[in-house]
Structure formats: C-alpha cells, structure tokens
C-alpha cells in the first residue's frame, strides 16, 4: 500500500472525481425526472433549471472551498514569532514533499486536529488547532502536518472538496424535492394526468430522493477511508518517523473519547485528520478506526 506511486494516486483521484460527479448527476437527475413526470410537468425544463443551478452552486463552492472551510473553523493566519516553529515545520515538510508551501492557519480550539483544503497544491491551506500546537510534541506535530501535506500532494483535497460540495448539494436538492412533493400533494396536482400510475412514480421519486444522498455518502466514505491510509503512509515517507504520527493519533483519540465534544461541523469533518464525530456505523465513518491506522503504521 505504501509502495503505490503518488502519480497513480493523482490519476485515480481524477478518475474517481469524474465518476462521482457522473453518479451524482444521474441520481439527482433521476429523481428530479421521476417526480416532475409524476406531477405532469415538463421534465426537460425542470432538469435544465436544476442542472444550471447546481452547476453554479458547485462552481462557487469549489472555487471558494478553502475559504469556506477556514471560515467554518474561524481560523486565523499563523503569523508572528509565536508560530515560527509551525511555519518552519510546514515550510520544511513542503520542501521534502516537493510542493509549494501552503498557507498556514490556526483554529482557535482546544481540540487536537488539523485539516488541509484547496483545489491544487499551489492554492492550498493547512490549518491546525491551537490544542494541537499546545499538546503535541514537535515530532507528533510533524507527523500530523506531513499527513495533511500528503493529502495536498496527492490532490486528495480537490477530490474531497468536490465530493463534499456535491454531497451537500444533492442533499439540498432532494430536500427541496421532497418538500415540494409534500406541498404539491396537499394542494392537489395541477395538470396531473390522473391517479393510478402517478402514485407509483411518486413513490419511486420519493425513494430516489431519499436514497441518492445516502448512496453517495456510502460510496464516498468507502473511498475516503482508503485515502487516509495512503496519507498516513505518505506522512511516514516524509518524516521517516512513524512513531510521531502514531503518538499524535493516540493523543487525538484520547482527547475525543474523554472530552466527547467538538466544534467541528459535520459537513467539513472529512477534511480533518481525525473525524471528531463518533459515528458508530462503520459505513458512515470518513476515517478508519484509529487502532487500524496505528496497526498499519506500526508495520512500516
């Protein structure tokens, strides 16, 4: 696993992003189509409106993704003598990774966590929490930052950005459809063809609208967990010191199991080094269990 070349990974990320967009388009288009047909509207017209709106929203969120992520974390730029060590670490590790130095931000929170965002290496940011700076030793911090830099180097950040935006968008669209269905159902159907056949279509539409975001999320999470192992491997490749990341992961796990609180928004959780939300269902977790990650690291 650690041997996989990062060029291959970049290619895989691009292909996966593409297929994910296609899948999202088919699923969303599918339920919009079914529901509009069920109501007797012109499905083409609705589809054109829906896709125009989605493309605009996707584009805006995509180009502003790092700003959105930083804003949701209330992060401030790491400037001044206080953050010399942090800036030096990021600069040095970017050198080792052969990428331009990303902008460094700090999130005012006692939690121990970090994330990377952006669409490509020369437009990327790394953000760590104040808690991580206080609690982690230099080697642990090095492991964490190297993990984030591998996400940047492998273009994981772009993939995660696309997916986060699309999953959010599909969820919104399906909500709107379900709601309009509800109101439409009460107000009586205008121009509806008449009973019977429509009922089945409406049921299918509702099912699709409910299932689409769930299917997308499961597909996404399955791929996302694999990516974390790759970034862990990439981190060790940069630091040549698995112990640092192992200890950092232990401390993070420890923090979230004892404190059980987080300010990190669920929608941006996939971007972080460790998912703060203790979600029990494995299929819905963005990150592999910390023990599994540590086991894989110890084998290196």
């Amino acid at each position, binding site marked *: 696993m650690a041997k996989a070349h990062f060029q291959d990974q970049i290619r895989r990320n691009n292909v996966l992003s593409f297929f994910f967009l296609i899948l999202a388009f088919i699923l969303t288009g599918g339920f919009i189509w079914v529901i509009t047909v069920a109501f007797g509207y012109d499905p083409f017209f609705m589809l054109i409106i829906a896709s125009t709106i989605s493309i605009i929203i996707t584009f805006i969120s995509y180009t502003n993704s790092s700003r959105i992520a930083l804003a949701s974390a209330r992060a401030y730029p790491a400037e001044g003598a206080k953050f010399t*060590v942090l800036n030096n670490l990021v600069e040095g590790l970017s050198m080792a990774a052969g990428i331009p130095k990303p902008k460094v931000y700090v999130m005012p929170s006692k939690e121990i966590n970090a994330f990377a965002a952006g669409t490509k290496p020369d437009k990327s940011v790394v953000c760590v929490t104040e808690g991580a700076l206080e609690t982690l030793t230099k080697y642990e911090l090095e492991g964490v930052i190297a993990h984030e830099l591998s996400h940047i180097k492998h273009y994981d950040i772009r993939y995660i950005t696309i997916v986060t935006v699309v999953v959010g968008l599909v969820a919104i669209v399906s909500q709107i459809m379900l709601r309009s269905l509800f109101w439409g159902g009460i107000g009586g159907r205008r121009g509806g063809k008449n009973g019977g056949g429509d009922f089945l279509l409406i049921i299918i539409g509702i099912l699709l609208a409910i299932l689409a975001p769930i299917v997308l999320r499961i597909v996404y999470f399955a791929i996302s967990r694999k990516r974390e192992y790759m970034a862990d491997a990439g981190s060790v490749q940069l630091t040549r*010191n698995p112990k640092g990341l192992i200890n950092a992961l232990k401390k993070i796990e420890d923090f979230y199991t004892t404190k059980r609180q987080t300010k990190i928004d669920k929608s941006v959780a996939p971007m972080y080094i460790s998912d703060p939300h203790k979600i029990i269902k494995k299929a819905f977790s963005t990150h592999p269990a910390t023990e599994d990650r540590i086991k894989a690291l110890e084998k290196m």
Partner: protein
Amino acid sequence: MIGIIILGILVILVVLFFIGYYNRIVVLENRIDNAGSQIDVQLKKRADLVPNLINTVKGYAKHEKELLENITKARASVVNAKNLEEKAKAGNELQKTLKSLFAVAENYPQLRANENFLHLQHELSGIEDKVAYARQHYNDSVLSFNNIVEKFPSNLVAGMMKKDGKKYLEIPQEDKVVPKVSF
C-alpha cells in the same frame, strides 16, 4: 497491406514510448536541479545569519575565540564552495561548529538571555531542519531519476540522451543514527 499497417502501428508505438520516456527523464532531472537549489537557498540563508551571530556572541563569550574562528572558516568554505556537493559538505561542517557553539552557550547565562541570540538560535535550528528536509527531497528525486535511467526499457532512451545516474547527497554522520523505535 496488413503487414504495413502493423509495421506502422509498431513505429507509432515506439515513437510514443520514446517521447514519453524522454519527457519523463527531463522532468525528473529538472526536479533534482530544483531540489538542489532549495538546499542552496537554505545554506545561503544560514551563511548570511552567521556574521550576525558571531557579533552577538563576541561580547559575551570572550574565551571562545577559537570556536568563533572555526565558525567563520566553515562559513567561508560554504560561501566559496563551487558545486552543490562541496557546498553541502561545507554546510554540514558549519552545522557542526554551530552546534558546539550552542552547547557552549549554556555556560553563559547572559548570552542565553540575549533576545537577539535567542532569535538567531531559533532561526538557525529551523534552517537545520529545512536543510535536512530539502536534502531528503533531493535524494528522493535522485532515486526516481536513477530508477528511470537504469530500468528497462527506459534505460534505452536514457542511453540515447547520454544520461547517467546521479550521486546521492551525503547525510552527515550524526544524523545517521537511526532513531530508536520500539513497538
């Protein structure tokens, strides 16, 4: 007819293969140059900080004349080094002398309280890390380059381009101590 088509396809494949490897080799070689210049930048930064450091230390530690002279000498050989290999070696030497200076500084409480000295110490230890990272990237880049130059069939293209494997940068002795990792 079929024979000509097959021949044509084969020729196109060979040309594509050649172009692909040719470009790959060029990219990898440029990456080594870029990595080398990154090391260079850090070494130069360090050399620039040294005179300032010596001036600061002079006032407090009058008995360390010999050590300061050694540092000045080591710095001069970094500045005068002609190629990257020499420069890196001289840089390692300078690193060593600086380390002993910071060790000696423990004996001068007033020096340790000097803000300028502390700032320089931080700066220099940051540079030390960066030199190590940059050297790692350099050696990683050399590894990818050497792989493509030596592996079949890319070695055929490399032979035509008259490219040979490159040398790795030496890692200073004390860095070679493998960190003790116990699981």
